[in-house]
């Protein structure tokens, strides 16, 4: 990254007696414990303080967009699973709704409710990973295990409904792959009851721990304008105080029927837009997701979820940009069809991709330990960034 392009470093170190000092170039990753995957960051450091950070991505590039042009419309869905592998349901949902809107297809009520329930469960699962690994980045091991313990319960629910624990391929064009078994809804509600007290436990252990607050508050502050300019979205943008949640702003599926709040960072522990705010938005969103799940479970009609799934999908020629709110932010599919059996072009606007690009702008002047905290608070998934 061209240095003149960056904002001036916040630390200008004074060197007495014109002592000759050197910048140290440090390659953080791609096999570093806290880069959340195969991300490489070329750091230039002055002691513990970072002068510049240049993220290098592409180590996990799997040619999703090229694949998508070569397989049929339906066969893309398993590939979308593998984008953001922590929140596959949300990936499926965005792509499928995009196609349905192009085809002007109606989905029956039960399938819509099931979609919302699984997407929100998946959001909780994803936020749990974000919380746990964030604790790990900061140095606390135990919250990680607790969040994974609770995530397992969500995965059990998913396994019961669609047979897979990570890559679901569940939401299909026109409906969902499997209808929920009787009793599944009660299990989801049971999970909600089980889960809410657990959030308090995470808060006791991690969120309000003084050391954790010291490590994250006032660290990696992203002002709202900068966040918008960099195209941040999701908890990253909401942490900066911008109430941008596509579930409210541009409702898809049946999100307009449910009552929930957009959580934004308020700078309770430090400045608006610091790491703690981004973290706290995730915690608060889990409460909102539970709210949505409860409402959807109450409202879910009986019937068959599968009835309108078409066998052979033909998407009319045209193009559509479908954006949904994935746990990481605005997940966009720009789909171009020429009316054939395969897509002409599918571009994925992955949220973590834009979120990560802000790193080189906020990293100068922070410490290495803070950089780890910042990366963790952005909650990146390299599968989605590299595609």
């Amino acid at each position: 990254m061209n240095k003149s392009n960056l904002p001036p470093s916040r630390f200008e170190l004074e060197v007495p007696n014109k002592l000759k000092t050197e910048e140290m170039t440090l390659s953080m990753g791609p096999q570093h414990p806290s880069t959340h995957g195969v991300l490489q960051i070329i750091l230039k450091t002055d002691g513990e303080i970072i002068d510049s950070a240049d993220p290098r991505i592409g180590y996990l590039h799997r040619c999703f967009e090229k694949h998508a042009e070569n397989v049929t419309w339906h066969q893309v869905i398993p590939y979308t699973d593998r984008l953001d592998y922590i929140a596959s349901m949300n990936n499926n949902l965005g792509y499928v709704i995009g196609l349905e809107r192009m085809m002007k297809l109606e989905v029956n009520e039960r399938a819509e409710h099931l979609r919302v329930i699984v997407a929100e469960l998946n959001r909780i699962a994803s936020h749990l990973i974000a919380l746990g690994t964030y604790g790990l980045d900061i140095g606390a091991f135990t919250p990680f295990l607790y969040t994974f313990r609770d995530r397992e319960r969500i995965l059990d629910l998913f396994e019961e409904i669609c047979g897979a624990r990570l890559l679901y391929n569940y939401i299909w064009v026109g409906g969902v792959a499997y209808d929920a078994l009787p009793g599944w809804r009660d299990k989801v509600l049971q999970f909600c009851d089980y889960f809410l007290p657990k959030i308090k436990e995470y808060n006791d252990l991690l969120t309000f721990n003084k050391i954790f607050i010291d490590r994250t508050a006032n660290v990696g502050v992203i002002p709202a304008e900068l966040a918008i300019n960099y195209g941040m979205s999701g908890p990253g943008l909401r942490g900066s105080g911008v109430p941008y949640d596509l579930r409210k702003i541009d409702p898809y599926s049946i999100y307009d029927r449910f009552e929930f709040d957009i959580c934004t960072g308020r700078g309770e522990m430090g400045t608006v837009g610091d790491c703690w705010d981004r973290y706290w938005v995730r915690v608060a969103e889990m409460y909102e997701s539970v709210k949505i799940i409860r409402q959807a479970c109450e409202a879910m009609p009986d019937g068959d979820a599968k009835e309108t799934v078409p066998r052979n999908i033909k998407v009319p020629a045209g193009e559509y940009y479908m954006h949904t709110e994935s746990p990481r932010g605005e997940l966009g599919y720009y789909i171009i069809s020429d009316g054939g059996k395969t897509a002409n072009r599918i571009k994925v606007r992955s949220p973590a991709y834009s979120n990560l690009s802000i790193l080189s702008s906020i990293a100068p002047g922070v410490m290495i330990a803070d950089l780890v905290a910042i990366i963790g608070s952005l909650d990146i998934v390299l599968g989605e960034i590299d595609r």
Partner: protein
Amino acid sequence: MNAREIHDQIKEKFPEAILEFNDTVQQPYLKIAPQPFYNVCQFLRDDADLDFDYLMCLSGVDYGDLLGTVYHFYSMKHTHKIILKVEVPRENPAIPSICDLWRTADWHEREVYDLFGIVFLNHPDLRRLLLPEDWEGYPLRKDYVTPEFFKGIPVLHSEMKSETNEQK
């Protein structure tokens, strides 16, 4: 503000810039000539009535005989959207970079350069992003042929080739 009004605003300011306007499709778009594109974008961002401060998506597209980029803009304040398209010829494709207006464009333009070979003028740091720096060719172009070897490493495994289902 809907697409028609946005179109009128731009038309008023840049009468020459708009090549095509289509609001019969699901998501209306404007086709802009490459030369005034940067100024149009600056206008979109800075005008108080338009105030497009959020670049949602920037994608490269191969239209067959033309290459193009598609920009999806959104305004946080006015909550309206617009899509701009720029098309350039296959040979020496160049589009002005809007990286200094929306920093989102920085990586997205690098990605488009990486996969389509469209050069973004005035981009501060136009390198390959997803592929290795010494990769040859632009894989997302429709006429891209997968190379047999990359630096002596076979790209497609010979077994894989024979095993793919012929019946398909």
